[in-house]
C-alpha cells in the first residue's frame, strides 16, 4: 500500500509542470523519476535500447554501433520531448486564460513580481508630474534591495530616476528608518531631511526630500 502511495506521489511529482518564471531563465527544472533525474533514467532506457538494436542487427561494426546509438538517443530524446513539452502546454493553458482580453498592464500578474509591479505603478502615478525619483546608491551585495531597485528603475520609466530626484521610495526590502520627530529619513546609509508623502502599506512609502534636494 505504501509502495502504491509513493508511486502515486512520484507520478504526480513527475508531471508537475514547471511553467517558466523569472528565476528559471537560466535553466529548466529537471523532473525526477523516483530518485533519478529524468535524463539519467532516459540514458538507461537508451542504453537498453542500444543493446537490443545491436542484438537484432547482429552486426557490430562502427557503422552499426553508430546507427544504434543514433536511434537510441532519438528514442530518449522523443520521450524527453513528451515530458518537457507538457510544461509548455500547461504554460499556454495558464497564460491564455490570463492574457485573453487582459490589458498589458495587468499581465505581470502571471509572474512573481506582480505586487512589486503594482506597488511601483502606484508610486509612479503618485509622483507629481515633472518631478523625478531619487536614485539611492545600493551595494550589489545587498541583493534583495539591489535587484528590487533595478527592477523599479525599469518599471518607473518613463519617469526617470536621478541623483536630483525630489522623491525617494522605500520598500520592505530597504534598510531604512524614518524619525517623524526630526523628519530624518535614513536609507541604505544615506540621510535626508524628508517628509512622508504617501504610505502604501507593508513597509512601502514615498518620501519627499526637503533638504539636500538639489
Amino acid at each position, binding site marked *: 500500500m505504501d509502495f502504491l502511495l509513493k508511486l502515486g506521489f512520484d507520478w504526480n511529482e513527475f508531471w508537475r509542470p514547471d511553467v517558466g518564471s523569472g528565476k528559471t*531563465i537560466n535553466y*529548466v*527544472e529537471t523532473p525526477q523519476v523516483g530518485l533519478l533525474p529524468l535524463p539519467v533514467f532516459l540514458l538507461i532506457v537508451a542504453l537498453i535500447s542500444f543493446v537490443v538494436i545491436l542484438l537484432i542487427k547482429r552486426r557490430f561494426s562502427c557503422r552499426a554501433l553508430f546507427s544504434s*546509438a543514433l536511434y537510441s538517443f532519438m528514442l530518449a*530524446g522523443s520521450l*524527453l*520531448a513528451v515530458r518537457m513539452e507538457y510544461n509548455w502546454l500547461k504554460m499556454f493553458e495558464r497564460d491564455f486564460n490570463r492574457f485573453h482580453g487582459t490589458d498589458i498592464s495587468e499581465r*505581470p500578474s502571471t509572474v512573481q513580481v506582480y505586487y512589486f509591479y503594482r506597488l511601483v505603478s502606484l508610486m509612479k502615478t503618485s509622483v507629481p508630474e515633472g518631478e523625478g525619483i531619487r536614485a539611492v546608491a545600493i551595494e550589489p551585495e545587498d541583493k534583495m534591495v539591489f535587484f528590487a531597485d*533595478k527592477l523599479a528603475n525599469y518599471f518607473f520609466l518613463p519617469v526617470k530616476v536621478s541623483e536630483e530626484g525630489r522623491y525617494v521610495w522605500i520598500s520592505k526590502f530597504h534598510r531604512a528608518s524614518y524619525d517623524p520627530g526630526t523628519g530624518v529619513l535614513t536609507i541604505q546609509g544615506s540621510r535626508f531631511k524628508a517628509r512622508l508623502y504617501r504610505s502604501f502599506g507593508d513597509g512601502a512609502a514615498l518620501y519627499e526630500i526637503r533638504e539636500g534636494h538639489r
Partner: protein
Amino acid sequence: MIWLRLFISLALPSAGGYLFISWALDGKDRPGPVERVILGFGAGAGLLALEIFIIGLIGLPFSFSLAAAVFILLALPFLFLRRMHPGAGQNPGHTAGANNRQGAFMVALAAALFLWIGLKTGFVLYEGFNRPIVSLDAWWNWSSGAKFFYYSRGLVLDPSNEHFFGSTYRPFLGYPILNSLLQVWVSLALGTFHEAMAKAWAPIYFIGVVWLVFFAIRREAGFLPALLTAFFLSTAPLLTYHAVDAYSDLPLSFYVLAGSIFLWRHMEGGGAREAAISGLFFSVGAFTKNEGLVYLAAAWLALLGHSVFEGRSLRPVAYFTASALLYLSPWLLFKASYGLGYGHGYGLGTQADIAGGVKWVSSAHLEVIGVFFKELFLTANHSFVFHFLALSTVLAFGSIVRSKIKYLYFIVIFMVVVFLLNYTLTEDYRYVLDRSAVNRNALTFLPLAFFIAGLLSSRALKGPGAHEK
C-alpha cells in the same frame, strides 16, 4: 492597428535582409525563398540595429520614420543590383535526395513532426507576443536600457550626464546592444514600449534556428533526417524558454548557427562570398553578446585552419575578416573611445562600472568543471544532443578528423574551453556554482551542435567515404 505595426516592425528588416541575401547569394547555389527570408530576418535585424546605433552616435533623435527610411534606402539598392545580376531568378532545389523513401510510414512520421513543430511555433509566437518580459536578467541587462533609450529617444552619450549610455539602467555599459536596440526598434514601430511585444523578435529567432538547421541538413541528407533534426532542436527545453523572453543567448545562437552554416558552405565548395557572409553573421553575434567576439575568433581560426591545411587560398579569410570588421568597427571604435570594457564589471553599485574589467581569482576554481558538465549531461535543458556528440566523437573519431566537420567541432570545443577557462580563473566561477550561466552558455552553441550532429549522422550512415568529403 498594433498588430499591423508589429508586423511592419518584423517584416521590414526581413524584407531588407532578404534583398541583401538574395543579392549576395545570387547564382546556382542560392537557397530557396523561405531560407532566404529566415537568413534575411537575421541579417536585416543585425543591419537595422547597427543603423539605429549609428543614428544614436550621430546624435539624431530616434524615430520610426527616420530608422525605417534609412533602412529602406540602404536595402533598396540590393533590389536593383540583384536584377542586374546575370544569375538572377535561378532557384534550384537543394534536396540532397538521399534516403528519401516515400513509404506511408515516412509520410505519416513527417506529417506528425511537421504538426508538432507547427504547434510549438504557434506556442512560442503566442507567448512571445503576449507574455510580458519576466526574467530578471532580461530586465536589467537588456530591457531596462532599451526602455530608457526609447523614452530618451537616443543613446545619451554626453559623459557628464548621470545617465550616460544608460547608466543606472544598464549595469554593464560594455555589453553589446543588439538586443536593446531591437526592442527600441519594435517600440518605435508600435509607438510605445510594450512590455510583451518589445521582444517580439525572440520567437522569430527560435523559428529561425529550427528551420535554418532543417534547410542546412536537407541539403546534406534529405528531407526526413532534416525534419528529425529540426524537431529535436525545437523540443530543446531551454531554447523554448528563451524563445518567449528577451534574453540575448538565442539571438547569439542564431548568428553562430548562420555563420557556421555559411562557413560550411564555403568549405564545401563555396567561394569567398560565403566566407564574407559567414563573417557578417559572426560579427552580428559579437554585437549581440560579448562572447560573440570569441565565437568570431573561433570561426576565423577555423577558416584559417581550413585554408592552410586544405591548401586553399587565403582570400576567403580576407573576405571574412573584412566583412566582420566593416560591420563591427563602429561598435569597437565606440567602445575603445569611451573606455568601455568586455567583462561583467563584478561588484557594481547602482552606478555602472564603465571599465567592466575581468576580475581574476588567486587560485583556479576547478570544481566548476564538474558542475559544468553535470549541467550539460544530467539536466533536461538541451535534449540529448551533447550525449550523442560525445559518443559519436568516440565512435567516428577518425572520420571526423579526416572530414571538414572537424572545423565546426573546433568552434564548439574552442568555446567550451574558453568558457571553462573563464569560469575556473575569474570571479565568474560563481555563475557556474549558482547555475546561472552554464546552460545559457551551452544554449549559444546548441543549434550548431544539432547541425553538427545532423551532418555527422547523415555522413556516417551513408557509409565509408561519404564522411570524408
